[in-house]
């Protein structure tokens, strides 16, 4: 087909996506660092393991989704990416529940692991705030069948989302190794 110079980027949801992301990020910072601890039920201590599991499932779906779109299998790509979205959304619910009771976790490790841990943690946290609006925008353009914009933004969304999911699991295991 003839090349076209149509650049009618649909930015309708941008204010909603950015506002929603900012609200969630602010809420999480308040929840984790300012709200303080509340004594909760015992099963709360199991939630970090569940979070790690949901992050792993999300990462697996992201990789499968990526492989399938490289092979131009769009339907399967979509199913994997929607599954990744569902796992990440469940993670967010579980994460908020955990931190409602728990607050932040002090890292007891010393030596070389300390800067490594904090590098991973800080990049994980800051990129997760970027990931949320990127995921919503990528999803929006796919469902609007604006595949050119979908593809352009997905080049950023995919590596950031994957990094956040994988480092979430790494943080869990490093904490587990140094606290028990």
């Amino acid at each position, binding site marked *: 087909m003839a090349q076209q110079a*149509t650049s009618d980027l649909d930015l309708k949801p941008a204010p909603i996506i950015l506002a929603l992301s900012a609200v969630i990020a602010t809420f999480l910072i308040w929840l984790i660092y300012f709200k303080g601890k509340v004594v909760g039920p015992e099963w709360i201590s199991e939630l970090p393991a569940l979070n790690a599991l949901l992050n792993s499932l999300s990462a697996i779906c992201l990789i499968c989704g990526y492989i399938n779109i490289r092979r131009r299998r769009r339907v399967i790509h979509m199913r994997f990416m929607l599954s990744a979205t569902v796992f990440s959304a469940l993670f967010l619910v579980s994460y908020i529940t955990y931190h409602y009771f728990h607050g932040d976790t002090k890292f007891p490790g010393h030596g070389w692991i300390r800067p490594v841990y904090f590098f991973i943690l800080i990049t994980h946290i800051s990129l997760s705030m970027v990931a949320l609006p990127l995921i919503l925008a990528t999803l929006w353009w796919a469902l609007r*069948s604006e595949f050119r914009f979908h593809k352009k933004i997905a080049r950023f969304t995919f590596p950031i989302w994957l990094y956040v999911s994988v480092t979430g699991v790494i943080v869990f295991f490093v904490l587990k190794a140094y606290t028990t």
Partner: protein
Amino acid sequence: MSALIWHLLLILLLFTSCSNRAAKLPDYGAVPAFTMTDSDGRPFQGSALAGKVWIADFIYTTCPAACPMMSSKMSGIHKQLAGQPDVRIVSFSVDPLHDTPAALKQFGSRYGGATNDWIFLTGTPDTVHLLAYTTFHVGDVLGKIEHSTKFILVDKRRHIRGYYSSIDPEGIPALLDDLDALRKD
């Protein structure tokens, strides 16, 4: 955990291993020869689509909700397929008495269409009825105006090979998957 990964990889392999997908697509019959009018007022022969895989839909320019939604989805497909010489999009008017070539041109260009690769067609009510109702089974022009919101895939030999919802989120990815298969066929 590792068992789960292996299961997922196995499913992935099963999903991706089928070959010659075009032959597996259903055949809903041939589109007959037709002559209509394009949005520049020139006669358009159906035979101009020989050797192309094309996506058809049925719209009318004064339609309140469904056609703008369909055309905006189609616009995304159009941009995605830009630069492919073997693919065409054809939007048929189901209201040929009101949809003049000029009206179609105005409607189409709103979505980046009414070009040489996204063709808008109108014609006599009989021709439109034959195509919309008898051939594609999506609308009845001689009665009241109604039409399906489905997108239809037609192969290089002008056989109808698939119907896809323009509303269901899986419809358009499925259409594009099958389009790839038919282009290789």
